[in-house]
């Protein structure tokens, strides 16, 4: 082993595998804690359960640097626009975990002010039951999310994205060409009109001088 490691090596793998490997093992959560589920998340994060064992090393309190939006707690209608904005601020790729009964379905708050499940506002990848959920359940959800990420294909997504961009560029160039054509035609007709006018003027002048 040591001898092999000293020599220069070549490792072959697919890019998908490498990217997914990196993504699964560095899922940084953004805790959106509004109720008691956030307390369970805190105990998941610290020493006894230690979420950093599976690579969720840091809890990022900014949506720009996090991968997983962890909605832990009741979401009211007054809070819903804020949650949506935070989701929109997160960079791709992003995943959402709905933790606990309240975030999944509104829980026992069947009233005018509670959102019946955050999937009415943002797409959710993994749901966790419980009121509040146990840290073990949270780990289970993280493993599920890791499995889901391993199935994703970065290259396919990229190809689709490139295809979309290509189509967009084609459409834009076609539009620009049509615009330019229309503009040229307008100019040509303008010039023709101008020439015709001049000719008529000249003819008028000639007739005037003849008379």
């Amino acid at each position: 082993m040591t001898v092999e490691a000293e020599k220069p090596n070549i490792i072959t793998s697919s890019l998908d595998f490498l990217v997914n490997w990196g993504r699964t093992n560095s899922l940084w959560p953004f805790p959106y804690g509004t109720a008691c589920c956030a307390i369970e998340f805190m105990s998941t994060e610290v020493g006894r359960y230690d979420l950093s064992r599976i690579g969720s090393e840091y809890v990022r309190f900014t949506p720009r640097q996090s991968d997983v939006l962890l909605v832990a707690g009741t979401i009211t209608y007054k809070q819903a626009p804020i949650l949506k904005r935070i989701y929109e601020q997160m960079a791709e790729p992003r995943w959402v975990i709905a933790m606990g009964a309240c975030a999944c379905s509104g829980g026992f708050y069947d009233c005018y002010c509670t959102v019946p499940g955050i999937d009415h506002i943002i797409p959710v990848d993994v749901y966790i039951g419980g009121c509040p959920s146990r840290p073990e359940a949270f780990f289970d959800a993280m493993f599920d999310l890791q499995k889901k990420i391993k199935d994703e294909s970065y290259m396919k997504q990229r190809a689709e994205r490139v295809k979309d961009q290509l189509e967009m560029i084609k459409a834009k160039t076609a539009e620009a060409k049509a615009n330019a054509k229309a503009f040229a035609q307008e100019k040509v007709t303008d010039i023709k009109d101008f020439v015709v006018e001049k000719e008529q003027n000249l003819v008028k002048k000639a007739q005037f001088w003849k008379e």
Partner: protein
Amino acid sequence: MTAENIFSTLEEKFGAKRETLDKWGVTAVVSPAYLHNAVQFLKDSAEVKFDMLVDIAGIDYLTYPNHEGPRFAVSYAFKSIKAPGIRIRLKVLVGEDSLKVPTISDLYANANWYEREVFDQFGIVFEGHPDLRRLLNHVEFVGHPLRKDYPAQKRQWLSTNDYLLPELEKRLETLGYKVIQRSKEVEPNNDEFLEGSIKA
């Protein structure tokens, strides 16, 4: 018994009536016109000075059995720090047609938010209140949810966050600060209102 004296004074001076249905016998019904004076009397010149306003509660009697009279009521609970055993509750009956009660936020500072909450949940207007806005519900919320005829499961989509900067600036100005320049990001942006907004 001092509470009885206070009640008799309330009955004499402010035309209050003892509520017979009250199990504890501490409630007096006052008309809205006398409310402010009655509260001032309780706070300043009663035998036991009621210097603490415990709560203001709105009541909707729409589905209440065997109720006669106006639909709404506002109930004020008072407590004395010196004699904590004595409590007094004043009740004001509010008809559906007027919905107006004089404010007592000039006497008790905490009445400000209590009255805002009652306004938010029941739609009762407190006349003379310095800043009568919704407290718990969203600015775009339509209706008053604790009224009995509001369907409890009726949900309303709201599209934006509350814009609280004007209130904040007002408060800063009372503290002696002055707003010279405002960042462009904090200005309300019409693009930020989501689909279904009342503004869009």
